[in-house]
């Protein structure tokens, strides 16, 4: 199966002051159609940078980023982004937020309402269509973002720590919901997290990134049975996988903490 999304020897650096901060160095990655890849890494290791490259918000300093084999140039609506901080339009109701990408896609007015209803139902927010985002809890807002992204019908969903701001229990529920939706829609998803459990619960493959400058440390396939409920999560196989991932991560973290202790202030 050919990769839907791929990074080829990507390096990305930001000019800061006089010099350059290298956020990602020589990173190559293929994402296959229909798969859910988790990018796991400590804070500042370049996860968001990679996602921004895939979405076309930025372009690589060197190397190429490809969607279905063609270079991504400029913002790419076929790669839909789900932001950690929701990025809902506060001045639009839930319905208007979900209808926004439908209007952008040119869906005629009379079809829009029904389609919006469909996506709102999918994230189980029926009854909240006329509420403004500020009137919803964090978990509900994250579900609206998901509905809005799905309504845009992108070929790839890019999710940047979407559940990090939720409490652990709501998070669990949202993870279930995401898996359910992915199974139904078959969307390709690139999911960023710094939570090992979350990566294991969600990913078909787990990409562990190393600390700055970001590179791929290892890629771990995850064959745990789905749905990965609490029984799976307390199973020895889960524990084993977690151990394995932790062994990769630990080294990075200790390096990182040591570095931060010596570092100049930001």
């Amino acid at each position: 199966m050919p990769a839907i999304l791929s990074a080829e020897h990507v390096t990305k650096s930001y000019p800061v002051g006089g010099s350059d901060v290298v956020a990602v160095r020589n990173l190559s990655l293929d994402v296959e159609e229909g798969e859910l890849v988790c990018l796991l890494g400590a804070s500042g290791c370049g996860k968001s940078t990679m996602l921004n490259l895939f979405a076309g918000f930025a372009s690589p300093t060197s190397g190429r980023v490809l969607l279905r084999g063609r270079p991504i140039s400029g913002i790419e609506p076929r790669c839909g982004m789900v932001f950690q901080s929701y990025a809902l339009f506060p001045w639009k109701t839930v319905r208007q937020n979900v209808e926004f990408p439908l209007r952008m896609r040119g869906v005629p007015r009379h079809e829009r309402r029904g389609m919006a209803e469909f996506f709102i139902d999918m994230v189980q927010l029926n009854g909240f269509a006329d509420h403004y985002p500020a009137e919803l809890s964090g978990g509900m807002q994250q579900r609206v973002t998901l509905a809005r992204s799905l309504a845009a019908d992108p070929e790839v969903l890019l999710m940047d720590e979407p559940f990090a701001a939720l409490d652990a229990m709501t998070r669990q529920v949202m993870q279930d919901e995401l898996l359910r939706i992915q199974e139904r829609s078959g969307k390709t998803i690139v999911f960023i997290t710094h939570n090992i459990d979350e990566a294991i619960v969600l990913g078909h493959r787990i990409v562990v990134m190393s600390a700055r400058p970001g590179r791929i440390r290892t890629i771990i396939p995850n064959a745990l049975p789905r749905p990965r409920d609490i029984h799976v999560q307390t199973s020895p196989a889960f524990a084993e996988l977690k151990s394995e991932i932790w062994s990769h991560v630990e080294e990075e973290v200790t390096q990182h903490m040591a570095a931060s202790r010596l570092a100049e202030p930001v």
Partner: protein
Amino acid sequence: MREHIAVGTRRLPWLTIDWPGRAALVSMASVLLFIALWALATATGWISPLFLPSPVAVAQAAAKLVLSGDLWRAVLASSARVFAGFFLAAIVAIPLGVAMATFWPVRAIFSPFISLLRPLPSITWIPLTILWLGIGEQQKVTIVFLGSWVYILLATYEATRRVDPLLVRAARNLGAGDLTVMREVIFPGALPGILAGLKVSLAIAWSCVLSAEMIAARNGLGSLIWEAKDWGDMTVVLVGMVSISLTVLAADVLANRIEILLQPWERHRRH
């Protein structure tokens, strides 16, 4: 409701007892006390009525001006000037502010002039505007315009710059073009800041109209005050001052109403 800090309530526990309306009661008492002191000072002759007319004299003058309709006409005339100048200022400044915030060449072209114009009080424009426009309504409206447009511009500019770039990204990522981003993201995103700026500028516009009316106005609250001053009639001066206060306060209330109407998504803040 937002929690506010409170200090000093530990030593005086009775202050923490929050019976409803206690603040309103204290406020009322404080106003009554002030008026009583004022009346006393003038009645006993401690302050000559030449220097400070008694509250009764002021009330009488106010009643006379209200009954004759002169006060309403003055309020109306000044309000019309404020409204015209302010409206023009908004029409010019809001689009320019948005353009400056989103498009760097516009910013580069205008910013030196804005820096130079910003600190200039509208009152300094009086000589040139009289020269260019004479002393008619045009000149007064222009003074209001010149006094308020920079503030509206700066508020718009700041508000537009503060629009969350993430929302712009999100909109583009969902397939929006420049026009849609402008209309559906940047403008509503900047709206609260623009409206706040408009409210501040409205107060400034009022102070402009008063200086404009210093020179050759046939009507308006400013001319009421300046004429009364020239005739040494301090009761009318005081009536004029209070009228200005109340008019601006009324305009403020109106502005707040409009603000609420324009931003239904802020309704949760008002619970």
